[in-house]
């Protein structure tokens, strides 16, 4: 059981993602990017290298600059998304990363640098990122 958000929670999901070959094929595969995750005021950084998510760590707001892009939502919205994943085994309908990005007025993916090449990694690696968060269905999450 891991509490969201925390490094321990991301580590538990990383472990599932790193070990499951099914998450590394069928349009997924190697992924090289640094993703920020903003949950309310708490900030985390996920490093994807090749077939692994190699690191999850807490960061400061200034360190968001190092992220290619970051996913930002209020804590209650993250909770709703993760509960949807828990319920169905994967994100459905209004809770996929793509739909959240399109459906929310403020979007889901953002950056501090406005470098479109780095921002577009959200779309280029969308399947991998979805697989990663869908992996949370396999752990018990508390909030």
């Amino acid at each position, binding site marked *: 059981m891991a509490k969201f958000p925390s490094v321990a929670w991301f580590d538990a999901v990383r472990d599932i993602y790193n070990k499951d070959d099914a998450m590394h*094929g*069928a*349009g*997924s*595969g*190697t992924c*090289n990017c640094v993703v920020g995750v903003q949950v309310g005021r708490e900030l985390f950084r996920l490093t994807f*290298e*090749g077939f692994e998510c190699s690191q999850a760590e807490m960061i400061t707001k200034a360190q968001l600059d190092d992220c290619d892009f970051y996913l930002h939502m209020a804590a209650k919205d993250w909770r709703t998304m993760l509960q949807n994943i828990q319920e169905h085994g994967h994100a459905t309908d*209004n809770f*996929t990363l*793509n*739909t959240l990005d*399109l*459906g929310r007025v403020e979007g889901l993916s953002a950056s501090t640098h*406005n*470098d*479109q*090449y780095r921002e*577009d990694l959200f*779309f*280029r*690696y*969308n*399947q991998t990122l*979805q697989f990663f968060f869908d992996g949370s269905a396999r752990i018990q999450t508390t909030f």
Partner: protein
Amino acid sequence: MATAKDADRVRPALTLTKEELEVEVPEPRLNWMNQWREWGVRVRPGNKGLTLGSLNVGLYGEIPMNWPDRSRNPRGAIGVTGTPPVAIQIKDKVDLWAPCAADLYEEAIQRRWAPATDVDWKAIHPLPEDIERAICQVCTEICQYAIIDVEVITSWQHQMAYGYHEVKQFLATTTLDATRRHEAFRKRALVNGGGLGYEGPCQVSRLLLESSGGWTETVTGLILIRALFTQVMIRYLNRFAYNGVERKIYECVTQDFARLITYGVEHIKYALAHAPDKQGSILTTLAIGFRMFNRDLRDPVLREALAIVFGGGIAGARNEGMLVFYEMLDEYVQELLDACQYLRLPVSIEQLPKVFQKDQRHSAEN
């Protein structure tokens, strides 16, 4: 390391007859063996494997601004003199280069998918007829776009100098992506009791097919008009997907498009940085392209089909469906303006046809 013993295993010694032994075989000269422009190169694989970009070391990493060699000589090899030139017209780096091309090539290879087996086709279920017909119509138009993409890109590939093989190789993956897109949407149209619908209007397609002045200008239309719009449309279709089959297709196609768009935007950025005078032809292409796109959008077929998909049927198409359709257009315009800002292209929403302007749209349609 392979030994002579290993070699014997894979290539058995020849048993020659007496007559064969009497045939006079010229002594090998082996004079080609010391002819290398650079020897002793040893590229070591990194944590991403042995990538195409990592081979760009020493002489082999020299990518000149101009490649006058109109042959198929691989970059770094010694050319043969007297070879008749092939039809290579794009010999300047500024006309095709994007610094990310080698990385995008690797990414395309790594992140490949197969519609036949990676999509759980058996999970599809019957849909109301109006929705099924609408989805099939959208699939038909996306298939047509894919065919155009293949034709446009391949018509330029053979004109590109081999000195810039990273771009040629990446573009080869984009034509595969487009054929896979055609395959996936054709399968979706035919898997659930439906079929193919109307061929769409083709003003933008004609513009792309007839664009022969330059690859950069073709990329401008192909990426900033056709691909960016299709990408946004597919993301909206994903948002309103009716089953996991469609969702999987849309997710994978989004990624495929993202690579093509990244190449296109980064190429235009490179071209503008090294040849600022290209801005004029890029802006002209955009202006013509938007006029064509405006004409295509006057055709109601795609608009109505999308509205039905977004509105959950004919009943919902008139209000909610059309609202989502226009929201989708607004999202496309925003993506386009963001890209233009990134490229420092002076394009504003007021320059676009009224259908793309939220507050002018109503007057344009009346």
